[in-house]
């Protein structure tokens, strides 16, 4: 996508989403204040039901913003989780060559206006390869239909990589926001949105929506936290 088509609104959206995540994360640091000391405060303290270790995932994606082609993608990733807050997405690959659908805009332009774009082919992305830092500030649970409790976490991604277009390679930075739903101790599902911003002869962005199914390898190696002491007052 050409820089002139880059939508300022998209940046606003990104900033807004990031702000929401950050603001939501702030109350996580619940701290007993002087105000609460007289009556006391109550916490439900539970061992984390799910913890990630070595994550392998396969994904299906959609790149919606090119007016001439709607691109689909397949991908994969490997993430090593350091702890409950930080992880490193060592490799993330999105492959979309040959997975495009012509929107018909080019022929419509030619038929109705006798116009043609300069070279839409050059903006078709073949694949993106990147590595990211993952920050997971939100962890919690929800009820599904008022019956089943499901656990999930929300994460932010920030990383570097490269994008390969039809005609050239470009270095890129990568921003992402996603949500993981734990389906079991070893299986989880990620729904995320990423924005690649590439630099070089031309600067532009690529928006990617992806749904991933992840396998949590070596989950059993993680320390079971049951025996850990709970912080707090012990008179």
């Amino acid at each position, binding site marked *: 996508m050409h820089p002139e088509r880059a939508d300022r609104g998209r940046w606003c959206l990104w900033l807004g989403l990031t702000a929401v995540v950050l603001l939501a994360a702030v109350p*996580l*640091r*619940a*701290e*007993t*204040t*002087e105000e*609460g*000391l*007289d*009556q*006391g*405060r*109550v*916490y*439900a*303290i*539970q*061992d*984390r039901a799910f*913890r990630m270790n070595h994550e392998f995932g396969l994904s299906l994606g959609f790149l919606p913003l090119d007016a001439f082609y709607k691109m689909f993608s397949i991908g994969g990733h490997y993430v090593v989780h350091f*702890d*409950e*807050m930080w992880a490193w997405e060592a490799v993330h690959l999105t492959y979309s060559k040959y997975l495009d659908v012509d929107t018909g805009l080019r022929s419509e332009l030619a038929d109705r206006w006798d116009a043609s774009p300069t070279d839409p082919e050059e903006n078709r992305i073949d694949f993106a390869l990147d590595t990211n830092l993952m920050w997971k500030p939100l*962890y*919690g*649970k929800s009820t599904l239909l008022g019956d089943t*409790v499901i656990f999930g976490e929300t994460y932010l991604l920030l990383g570097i990589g490269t994008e390969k277009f039809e005609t050239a390679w470009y270095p890129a930075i990568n921003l992402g926001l996603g949500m993981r739903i734990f389906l079991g101790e070893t299986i989880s599902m990620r729904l995320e949105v990423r924005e690649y911003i590439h630099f070089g002869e031309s600067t532009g962005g690529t928006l990617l929506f992806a749904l991933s199914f992840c396998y949590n390898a070596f989950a059993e190696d993680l*320390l079971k*936290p049951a025996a*850990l002491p*709970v*912080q*707090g*007052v*012990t*008179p």
Partner: protein
Amino acid sequence: MRARLWIGGAVLVAGWLLGAPGWTLAQEGEGGGGDGGGQGDEPTAEQPAPAPAPAPNLSEEELKQLEGAVEQKVQVGPEVFDEGVKLFYEKKYIGASRRLWDYMAGNEKGAENYGYAEFFLAQAFEKLGLTHAAVEYYYNVAKDRTKPELLPDALVALERITRRYPFDQDLVLKDLLYDTNFGYLREDLREFILFYQGLLDYRSGFVRWGRNHFAQLDKGSYYYYKAVYVEAVYELVRYNLDKALEMFREILAANVKQTDVMNNARQSVARILFEQKKYAEAYAMYEQIDAPIEKQATVFLEEAWAQYYMRNYQRAMGLLYALEAPAFFRFFGPEKYILKSLIYKNLCHYNVAKDAISEFLQGYGEAVRAVYDRVDLDKNPILLDAALQDPIMVERGKFQSLLDTELNSLDRFDSQWTENGLMAHLQRIYGLKIQEVNRLLQVGLQDSLRRVAERLLEYEEQMNLLEYEIGLSIYKRLKGAPTQKEGKAEEIPYYGLQAYYEFDGEFWNDELHDFRFFIEDRCFSEERWE
């Protein structure tokens, strides 16, 4: 104060077991639904008994009707019986009931197939979800024994129903099992009868006879462990704690496949350990109880006491907070305010300790005033609600609910059973039994109300004492020239292996066991002051 809890608990358990309706509580977890007949809404264990209607006096005639006496006698041939049986085997239970009733209504009890007709009718009723009507006719078959070959099948059916549903205990246990000599029976039925004969002996105070009956049970059988439970509760009531503990542990070691029996045994063991001041062990045993959360109110309260004595006030208070959950909204728990106040007092938070006393008065003050004013106790909704949660009342209430449900379900058969009088007959049976159960509920309610009122007055007295002690503590502290507490806020970690969910008033059932209370201990320098 905790001793009172214990005594209350012991009486509760004793009432649960040795009281009239005890065992069906232990039986409710076994069954699934009925086997195909459309059993209606079975009352749940936690529903308190419904308030009884005024008790009528039953006339002789009504009592005869209750026994199922058949009045119409228009001679009907055996082909009607054959047709009824044929329909039964074709699983057309409504039609089968109608024809079998036609046959019974047109013949004397001594008629050739009368006993069989009663048996098939009972089976058809059971299939249709009319368990009380089924019990009435199984009872007739087993009691009259006009067809002795049907006795084992009738007893098997009764045993099945007694395990799954609330049932007429007077009819089945007292009139049939306790009063009848059945002669030789196969092993499983013999155990069923021996157990209930032993249980009724215990209830009547004939302990030696009860032991004799229980001694004949096969070790390791289903009824053997039920008998061990009865004996353990008996020892518990006599305060033979070690012996009772040994018996309960025998049940736990057997790991019988009846969750509620295991949970009751666990709770009993925990209570005994608590009495023996083994608080950590008691708490560990409480934690093993895996009953549905709404049945764990007493468990939470007793756990809180155990934690209190372990000086883990954080956990104890967390458990008390859990008792505020909607799942326990009918739990009669004035005791929790005593414990709450004690915890605050022990942390030298005297103002909130007094607030807990105010909370008690807010919740139960009206009921206390009603007792002092000597108004009718059943007019006070708090006392009435608490009285209806008495295990005996709950048990009777469950039976009453079952009768109501089954009586209402008779409408489904209106078109087929009205013409030949079966509908009217069943409505009479159910109506009279409901009246009888209501009368028993009314009688039981007065006793239960009195017990609740006495407990409430005890709690009020303890609250007054506690208020005085708090005042005394405040005075001592003032005298000791208090200093400003150098409070240090407890930090909740950003992240870690445990998730900290701050309680914001919304209760999640999965969190109730995990509440912790964060409050500073202001008694840090009491000793220094003194």
